[in-house]
């Protein structure tokens, strides 16, 4: 698993490709937009690094899965988000909710298990939720969220909206039966224009310690969607401009047709699987190093400077600003109170009820 040659290495490559493909929607790749995306990726990176510290300090419990190295994927795709769209993913969910506009303080406080947390301290890292902003949750059972997303998409057309669902899934989830059943339903319902679901495979090449080629004899993950009549393509997930182009084109298409579409983004987590994945026996230092060289933030930084959109000082400034923000964020999380004990018994049933058997 060494990085494939990027199709978008040089300056302007994106524009060229767009022209070639005659791409549907206008993807703003002007400087301002790119700087904005850059800031978002830095936000995610800085946030994730702070969570890693929090975990090592024992302030964050349970599992913690960070998105370091993969930033370009969610950042690019969520650029195509429109009001009323829905987004769902697994447990590696911090970036999605941040990109959709959740307050980083509330997200961090959630990880710290505080009452000010995004879901009141009930879910933790794996179960972020922000329905107002379109984020329909992070889920912990690999593959288990895929059917839900297909259901969202059906409901979007049932209600006759032109919204779509962005459904993120890991390479590891593809071997799971839930993937098969749900994507098949999506393809089937799509025949009637009843499933505007954009599947985004975050192929970081490993499910925990298992590489894709140790999970299946047919490793072209995008092509797996052929079995369900779902059109698909691949994109270099380390290159935010490339992602951006596909994201808008694919989202528009799904929105128009009500049919699903799948994009496999080839990416890499340069961090361990979870904060407790110490040894990483399943991959070499060298492999990690090679991928680090293609770091999505580094790549964009380089391009922005080369294109004179921003200079090194400007970059420094963004990073420093983000660090300052993150200090605030962490302070907020640390200083917040634990959830009140009564919260243990709320939100079990709508309308109340706990059924301890001691009511009667």
């Amino acid at each position, binding site marked *: 698993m060494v990085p494939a040659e990027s199709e978008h290495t040089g300056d302007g490559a994106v524009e060229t490709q767009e022209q070639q493909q005659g791409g549907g929607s206008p993807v703003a790749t002007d400087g301002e937009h790119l700087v904005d995306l850059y800031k978002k990726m830095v936000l995610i990176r800085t946030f994730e690094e702070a969570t890693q510290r929090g975990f090592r300090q024992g302030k964050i419990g349970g599992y913690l899965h960070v998105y370091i190295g993969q930033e370009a994927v969610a950042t690019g795709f969520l650029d195509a988000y429109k009001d009323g769209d*829905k987004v769902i993913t697994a447990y590696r969910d911090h970036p999605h909710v941040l990109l959709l506009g959740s307050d980083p303080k509330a997200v961090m406080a959630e990880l710290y298990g505080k009452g000010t*947390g*995004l*879901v*009141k301290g*009930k*879910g933790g890292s794996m*179960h972020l*939720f*922000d*329905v107002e902003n379109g984020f*329909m*949750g992070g*889920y*912990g*059972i690999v593959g*288990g*969220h*895929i*059917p*839900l*997303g*297909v*259901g*969202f998409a*059906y*409901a*979007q057309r*049932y*209600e006759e909206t032109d919204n779509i669902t962005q459904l993120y899934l890991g390479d590891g989830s593809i071997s799971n*039966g*839930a993937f*098969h*059943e*749900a994507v*098949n*339903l999506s393809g*089937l319902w799509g025949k*009637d224009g*009843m499933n505007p679901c954009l599947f985004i495979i975050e192929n970081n090449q490993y499910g925990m310690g298992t590489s894709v080629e140790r999970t299946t004899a047919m490793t072209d993950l995008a092509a797996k969607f052929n079995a369900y009549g779902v059109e698909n393509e691949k994109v270099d997930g380390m290159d935010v401009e490339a992602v951006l182009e596909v994201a808008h084109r694919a989202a528009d298409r799904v929105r128009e047709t009500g049919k699903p579409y799948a994009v496999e983004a080839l990416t890499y987590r340069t961090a361990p699987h979870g904060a407790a994945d110490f040894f990483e026996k399943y991959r070499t230092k060298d492999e990690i190093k090679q991928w680090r060289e293609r770091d999505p933030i580094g790549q964009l930084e380089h391009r922005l400077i080369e294109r004179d959109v921003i200079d090194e000082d400007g970059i420094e400034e963004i990073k420093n600003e983000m660090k300052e923000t993150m200090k605030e964020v962490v302070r907020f999380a640390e200083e917040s109170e634990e959830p009140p004990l009564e919260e243990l018994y*709320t*939100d*079990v*049933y*709508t*309308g109340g*009820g*706990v*059924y301890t*058997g001691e009511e*009667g």
Partner: protein
Amino acid sequence: MPEMTYREALRAGMAEEMERDEKVLLMGEDIGVYGGTHLITDGFLDRFGKKRVIDTPIAEGGFTGAAIGMAMMGLKPVVEMMTWNFSFLAADQIIQNAAKVRYFSGGQVEVPLVIRGPNGGGVQLSAQHTHSLENMYGHFPGLKVVSPVTPNDAKGMMLTAIRDPNPVIFLEAGALYGTKGEVPEGDNAVEFGKARVAREGTDVTLISYGRQVNLCLRVAEKLEEEDDVSAEVIDLRSLRPFDSETIVESVKKTHRAVAVQEQWRWFGVASEVASIIQEQAFDYLDAPVVRVSGAEVPAPYARNLELAAFPSEDAVAKAARQVLYQEVSA
């Protein structure tokens, strides 16, 4: 009052809610074109159209999960599990998502979902097609679990289930689809969490649910005739929420109880019933609560073996006599 079958009652409940509320839709295997394996949804496709009556592939986990997603978006899906035996394939979706997503989202979503279908055995379907799963689903906070046995309750609880903003596991007495009973016209919604006194009595309480309620009623007649014993029969109807009060009150009156279930004994509903009674009516009990359960074997096919595998009138009568100290304990 008009009579209808259990099947018609379910159908009426669903159809009325579908007429009333556009958000209600149906999903399941062969519920549309085929008319439903048990003909519960016969005619629905023509009446409500393909968008609201969805025939699915054989993918219980996938379509149940999709229904949960729809429910999270505010639709009200009613999923037919062709039989509950297939629900093990959807167990992850039901238990991990439907039951919990409200909680782990900090209350940001709700899951107004009904999953319905026949539960229990009795028609020689053998090991893989014979389960009573009320204890399994009833164990998990976040779910409601109900089990109507009369046509009145079949319709009334269906109305309540569809209107409930929480996921409801709706266990139908599959063997009784053809049985008739009175069902009032109009809205007969039946509140969850209230047991039904199916027969009043003073000497012993027989506690059950699902088709075993009918068995208990027959045994009660027999006890009346043969032993001059007055048995009270309680139909739990709802397993989660559970109505402890009604059974405790009854036992405080009769001082003796038998809990009858079709399911296996271990960690079953009858164990919970016995547990609650000894906890809450300890000083009133004149004999230990006796449980009558299915035989501890996968369901066999042969008719004679199958009959022997389920609670019988004799077994229940014997248990009643045992708590009445008319029969020596085993």
